[in-house]
């Protein structure tokens, strides 16, 4: 008998006669319904308060945020951020069609290369699938338009997000993912602040293995 059969047999033997007894119909129904559990009140705010909470929670975990009124302001916002932090005006850009709408020529000194993340990259710029207000979290899906290495290899990760991508609770992001029809991505990353470690004497340090800085540029002007 294979280990698989032995393990499944041992599980069934252990559950034999227990209440509640295993119920295949219930399991199917539950998987199909994927019902939400309790969503905390802070995850159910209206639009303006939701964006404010998203920013407050993000800043609470050392993410920095710039809000711009129009997509045309994004290049200058990013160039300004890099200059303020003495970072090179060079970045690896996600090959994401949504980022092509940004008029990058408005920041002529910003040198952009498209592709996946490499060890030498110091700055990456990506989009994201959603922002989640309850904990200031960014949800990033892997795919040809968004190599996961961009989220984790460079020291500085800049994320461009439209205000209408910000949802209250994780569950709304899961629903949007299901509704997008793209199936299960290889990787869904929930990113909440830059990388950190408290493993040396419980002293919190930023930039353990992943980014030392996470910067969000939120575009407020969203036309339906």
């Amino acid at each position, binding site marked *: 008998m294979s280990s698989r059969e032995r393990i499944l047999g041992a599980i069934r033997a252990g559950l034999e006669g227990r209440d509640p007894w295993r119920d295949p119909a219930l*399991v199917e129904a539950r*998987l199909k319904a994927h019902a939400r559990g309790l969503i905390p009140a802070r995850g159910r705010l209206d639009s303006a308060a939701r964006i404010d909470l998203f920013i407050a929670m993000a800043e609470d975990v050392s993410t920095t945020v710039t809000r711009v009124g129009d997509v045309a302001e994004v290049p200058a916002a990013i160039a300004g951020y890099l200059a303020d932090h003495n970072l090179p005006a060079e970045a690896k850009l996600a090959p994401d069609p949504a980022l092509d709408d940004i008029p990058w020529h408005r920041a002529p000194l910003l040198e952009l290369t498209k592709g996946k993340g490499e060890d030498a990259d110091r700055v990456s710029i990506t989009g994201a699938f959603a922002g989640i207000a309850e904990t200031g979290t960014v949800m990033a899906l892997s795919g040809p338009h968004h190599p996961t290495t961009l989220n984790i290899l460079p020291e500085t990760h800049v994320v461009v997000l439209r205000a209408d991508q910000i949802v209250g609770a994780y569950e709304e992001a899961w629903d949007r993912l299901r509704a997008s029809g793209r199936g299960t991505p290889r990787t869904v990353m929930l990113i909440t602040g830059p990388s950190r470690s408290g493993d040396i004497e419980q002293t919190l340090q930023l*930039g353990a293995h992943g980014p030392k800085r996470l910067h969000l540029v939120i575009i407020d002007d969203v036309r339906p």
Partner: protein
Amino acid sequence: MHITTPEFSANAKAALADEELQQALDKLRSGFTERRRAAVERLPEFDALCDQARAIKDHVLANLDLYLMRFEAKVIETGGQVHWCADAAEARQTVLALCRAAGARCVTKSKSMIAEEIALNDHLEAHGITPIETDLGEYIIQLADEPPSHIIAPAVHKTKESVADLFAEHHAQYGYTKRHDDAAALLEEARQVLRAKYFEADVGITGANFLVAENGAIVTVTNEGNAELTQILPDTHIVIASLEKVVPTLEDATTILRVLARSATGQEFSSYTTFSAGGRRPGDLDGPRSFHVVLLDNGRSSMLGTEFQDMLRCIRCGACLNHCPIYGAVGGHTYGWVYSGPMGAVLTPQLIGIEAGADLPNASTFCGRCEEVCPMGIPLPKMMRSWREREFEQHLQATPRRLGLALWSWFARHPAAYRGLTRVAARILTLIGGRSARIGWLPGASGWTAGRDLPAPEGRSFQELWAAKKR
């Protein structure tokens, strides 16, 4: 790994006398417990979420075979493979075979308690494959050749001076000759050394906090981002996880995630929570090409239907360790193996046998804090009591303890004798206590009185006072 669980008493004595350890444990108490309290206060729904999280796990356990089969089917759908392993030896062999098939010489690992449980590193090393731990704490204890002393903060017993010594000793080979003694510089050095290892590795091994039956994803939770680098850069991603990690849906994983980080480190959410399903998809520029889940039983299926089934709800947050007065006094290494604190006191006898683990269920004051802070409501004190009963039945306790219990049970069954004894004892202890009403030394109780005074009774026994009051 050498198991020192049977030497618990000797380990505890040494730990109490270890000043470096005692300082570290002081910090743990003030750090994690305080931050957890604050996080729970910030979320009014915390208790209700814990109730839901617990109900999810109970539902899964009652249908465990069904959810595991669904998870397996979904992993296969995404191009991955599931390897069912009945015990530690089979899991070690399976991981080794997968590493060999990938032609691996070097593997990176993100922290996994299951890997510790099956002693994976020793096995890989013995067969010519170099495992590199990437979680900073786990990396530190790998250099020190020690087991983890805490399930979420494996190097919590190390001071930064010890870390500096270890790095100075082990990093010279990479050209790092300057000894740093501040935490930031140590972290930066580890970052650089390990960054090279991520690129060198042929296989990345991670654990999993959850296995999602709905879509075959595995979930890792880290603050450092090391699980992501470990799995994304090499061509092969091996996940090792135990059976009870499965949850039905993304929503279920979300509910439990809401209580996990808050219970563990007092964070609202850990920095990185990553759902990974299968290998690289068409058009992807990065990610592993093959994806394997090694599913470990190692005695867990035999806990179903027993008084220890509820232990399978454990999500390894470490809250019970952080709030345990015994763990806080002696630290994790005293428990002699992989799991420590109250969850270790229940799980270790199950995994290594009650003979070797006999002392652990007795290392408790039954204060009940562990059960109170457990987000999954696991009745840890009750389970420790079950182990103690088994020990008594199997004659595993030392003779003095058995005699003591026999004596106690005789008095408990003879109330008149009990009343007589307590009357006399209360008066003698009052006399010894004298005017200060504290007892600093008592024959046979030096283990207690060496560390603190015993408060003396006030002349009469409780039953005498009760009888007087009734009149």
